[in-house]
């Protein structure tokens, strides 16, 4: 069995799967943080996996995805995949890097937000919001303008003695076909299951970044974009509403640590809602609006950065 070594969410990962979505680990590893194992395909998994369901126990989470695979995630260290006989490898990886990885992050005490993160000169900014609110599209526009990206879709936050950090993960963006209505997909994009995958290439930030802000995107609102700081209890609400697979949280052994971490994030990061109407504000204009707002709020000179 040949092992592939990858690095995502600050973890070294060994697996017999080939995952083009994951950044390669720079050197061989002997003692990986996580191993991902593909179990042999068995006929009887057909009837087992008629429904999507998940079961959370303190150190074991089992996720069934109908027609694809059963994923067992154990102790934040192992993912075992039992695919149904005719599942496509792309789909098996899609849910591995989505739900199964989400469960693993919870087990390890890392808080996964459902969103995409970009690196700004003030630190990492995470874009969260309901499905279709344009998180990945906005991240893609920052990417096009030369910003480095930390992750797409699932964004993990960890608490360290030096502060809160965003852990970089998949080095690709996943975008709906309509994100390219005007420009057409970039040449390096390829179609994967239901979306375009765009490798981040050189503009992938492979080092953890300090968490500066979380922006909740919303498509409603006035003609011009608006930026509003979230205050009080709503900060906690906003965070929990934007967790990745929130039903994985309750029942974890790490549950109380994770909830405490959410409180720290709510307190230390700048939480703000960003509302705009898509028909009146193009994504490129929203990027300029945010650059302007960040400069205004977070300061523009390097000196100010050092002080904060």
């Amino acid at each position, binding site marked *: 069995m040949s092992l592939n070594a990858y690095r995502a969410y600050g973890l070294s990962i060994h697996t017999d799967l080939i995952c083009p979505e994951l950044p390669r680990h720079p050197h061989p590893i002997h003692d990986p943080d996580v191993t991902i194992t593909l179990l042999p395909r068995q006929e009887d998994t057909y009837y087992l996996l008629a429904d999507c369901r998940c079961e959370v126990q303190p150190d074991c989470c089992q996720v069934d995805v109908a027609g694809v695979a059963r994923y067992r995630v154990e102790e934040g260290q192992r993912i075992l995949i039992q695919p149904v006989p005719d599942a496509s490898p792309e789909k098996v990886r899609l849910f591995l890097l989505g739900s199964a990885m989400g469960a693993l992050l919870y087990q390890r005490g890392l808080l996964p937000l459902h969103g995409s993160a970009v690196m700004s000169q003030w630190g990492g900014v995470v874009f969260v919001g309901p499905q279709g609110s344009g998180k990945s599209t906005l991240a893609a526009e920052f990417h096009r303008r030369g910003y480095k990206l930390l992750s797409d879709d699932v964004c993990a936050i960890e608490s360290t003695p030096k502060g809160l950090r965003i852990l970089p993960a998949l080095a690709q963006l996943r975008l709906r076909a309509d994100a390219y209505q005007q420009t057409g997909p970039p040449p390096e994009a390829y179609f994967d299951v239901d979306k375009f995958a765009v490798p981040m290439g050189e503009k992938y930030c492979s080092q953890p970044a300090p968490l500066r802000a979380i922006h909740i995107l919303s498509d409603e609102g006035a003609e011009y974009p608006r930026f509003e700081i979230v205050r009080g*209890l709503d*900060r*906690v609400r906003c965070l*929990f*509403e934007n967790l990745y697979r929130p039903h994985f949280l*309750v029942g974890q052994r790490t*549950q109380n640590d994770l*909830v*405490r971490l*959410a409180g720290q994030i709510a307190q230390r990061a700048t939480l703000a809602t960003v509302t705009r109407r898509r028909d009146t504000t193009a994504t490129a204009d929203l990027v300029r609006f945010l650059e302007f707002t960040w400069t205004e709020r977070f300061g523009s000179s390097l000196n100010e950065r050092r002080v904060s």
Partner: protein
Amino acid sequence: MSHFAPEDRLSRTAGLLSTELDQETVLMSIDAGAYYGLPGVARRIWEKLENPTSFSELVDCLEREYRVSREACVSDVEKFLAEMEREGLLRVE
């Protein structure tokens, strides 16, 4: 007429999550999508309810800590506990 008897055993409802934000304790019930901020005395009461406590014990303790009259203390604590009970945050036995 009192809503709670002195010997009523009071404790937290199981399954609630809590964290600290600014000077408050934040309680949440993820399934119900409900969030509660407990500042000041409310926070202290929640702290006391970590282990089952009788109503009279709770009032004794708060009366001492906050140096208020027994009457005012009973009335305020009762109001707050009744509200907690309505919201499903309190277990009374």
